[in-house]
């Protein structure tokens, strides 16, 4: 069967040929590849040997799956019916209980060394990992077994990548990301809360087409999606350069679409393509809607990017029972303290001098 016929066959299956090609072209564009590879991508995406995917859920809110369900380039039907073979996904599969466990077992034994393991959610490690159990087994055990047989591991969402909200201090369950447990295997992080599904899909298509993961940064995030800061492509950047800032939510500057830097936008320190890819295929994204970036693609953002509406985090001072203070206040206190000390020091010097003059004049009088 020629490639063209194949496409037409494919088009009969619910997705129009045009939509499918568009999806492939968009995936190529997202990856920064030349249009020449689109046919190759189409070929790879339509190959009868769809790569099996096992999707694991641990400590998570299913937000990443929810985001994926709303993807449209390509949509979820195209993804799971035509691009990949989704063999195990607790939220989407029909099977339950013993059947589901069998499915997982079959999927990883039949496709050992060939399947892609996607992990959504953090993995608790404290107290033997008892804080997350599925089918009587801990998350650590399940991940060990599945990841050891996988070809590639993709951690989707900030929880899977870095531990997420449950890893925030004091991290009661000892939650960690996948890369802290899985060694000797390529782990690709697609962080975000939730991540943009298109970044995930583009990564999968890249693996399908070339058989290897895209170029990664030092946190194992694909560079095509997490290579630049949000700030650099932000639509409000001209207002930043002009010095026009929203002072508080709802003020005239906010209504005019000024920069959200002073109300705590973390765009200048967050790597992601949100300002370019946007969400939900309608060009919507948080900063566009008037709310600052919260830095959700960065590791431990629950600890380091807080407070959401402040430029810099508070600092823990280990006195007075431990108080949190703004960096600014600390600076002001330090400088004020220095000024007070300088004044006191100068006063002591002058006082001492005046005193010694008095003494010497007294002595002179006595001598007379």
């Amino acid at each position, binding site marked *: 069967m020629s490639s063209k016929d194949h496409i037409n066959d494919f088009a009969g299956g619910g997705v129009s040929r045009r939509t499918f090609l568009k999806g492939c072209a968009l995936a190529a564009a997202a990856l920064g590849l030349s249009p020449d590879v689109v046919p190759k991508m189409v070929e790879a995406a339509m190959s009868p040997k769809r790569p099996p995917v096992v999707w694991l859920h641990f400590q998570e809110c299913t937000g990443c799956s929810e985001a994926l369900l709303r993807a449209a380039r390509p949509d979820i039907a195209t993804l799971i019916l035509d691009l990949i073979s989704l063999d195990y996904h607790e939220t989407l599969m029909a099977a339950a209980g013993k059947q589901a466990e069998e499915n997982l077992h079959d999927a990883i034994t039949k496709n050992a060394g060939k399947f892609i393991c996607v992990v959504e959610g953090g993995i608790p490690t404290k107290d033997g990992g008892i804080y997350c159990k599925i089918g009587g087994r801990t998350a650590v055990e399940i991940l060990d077994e599945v990841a050891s047989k996988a070809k590639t591991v993709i951690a989707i969402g900030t929880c899977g990548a870095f531990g997420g909200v449950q890893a925030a201090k004091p991290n009661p369950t000892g939650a960690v990301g996948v890369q802290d447990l899985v060694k000797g295997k390529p782990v690709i992080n697609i962080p975000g809360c939730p991540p943009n599904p298109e970044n995930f899909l583009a990564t999968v298509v890249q693996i399908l087409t070339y058989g290897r993961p895209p170029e990664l940064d030092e946190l194992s995030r694909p560079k095509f999606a997490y290579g630049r800061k949000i700030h650099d492509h932000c639509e409000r950047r001209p207002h930043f*350069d002009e*010095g026009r800032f929203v002072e508080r939510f709802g003020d005239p500057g906010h209504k005019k679409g000024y920069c959200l830097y002073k109300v705590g936008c973390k765009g200048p320190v967050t790597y992601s393509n949100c300002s370019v890819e946007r969400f939900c295929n309608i060009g919507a994204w948080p900063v566009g809607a008037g709310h600052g970036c919260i830095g959700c693609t960065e590791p431990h953002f629950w600890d380091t990017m807080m407070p959401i509406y402040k430029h810099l985090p508070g*600092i823990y001072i280990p006195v007075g029972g431990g108080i949190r203070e703004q960096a600014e206040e600390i600076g002001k206190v330090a400088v004020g303290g*220095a000024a007070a000390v*300088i004044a006191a020091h*100068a006063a002591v*010097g002058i006082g001492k001098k005046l005193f010694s003059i008095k003494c010497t004049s007294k002595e002179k009088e006595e001598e007379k």
Partner: protein
Amino acid sequence: MIRREPRLYYRVFVWSGTLRLFHWTLAFSTFILILTGIYIHYPPITTKWAEFKPQYIMATLRYWHFCAGYFFLCALAVRFYLFFAGNQYERPMDFLPINRRNLRSLRHNIRFYLYLTDEHECRMGHTVLAGTIYFILFICGVVMGLTGLYLLYPEAPTIARLGHELFGTPQQARLIHYLLNWFFIFFIMVHLYIAIWNDFKAPDAIISGAFSGSKMMPADLECPVEELKKIPFEK
């Protein structure tokens, strides 16, 4: 009051031209960095929602901040070079509290600044207290430079990797960068005060020395460097 001071002073050359160049480059660049940095951290309202004319103020001040930052880094590089290639007063062995002579000097400095003694130690180079603080400032400057480069070039692979290893995310680097800024403000206040205070209390004219490179040494003092004492002033 009659102040009994040595009658005769020798003017001795201590600070090389390179060191003075370093000092003033660092001073002016730090001044600009602090002013522009505070604007960048917390830009005050300058527009009043009216947008009369393009100002480009944040972009301009950021540009100045980066230019001054490069001067700052160059100054640090020069000082680092002088740690090894400078004259004997510019090397760390002379002013860090690492031997008995310097520890004794440090103790004396602290007593002098606490008004516990009026006896001024006439010393050719930095006093040990000052030298130690300057060395800490140098380290802080290096951290400032590295966090600054990390924030300026977050996409350059080497800098990004180094920054990530040393400081974590750019947000954490930003916090360190901001907190050390207060240390520099603190240092400038104390440094200026102490320099002026010393000019009142001590005869060696250190403010003038920051320009001329020389110090006034009492002629009847048992100078640690006999040879220099004999040469009144020579560059």
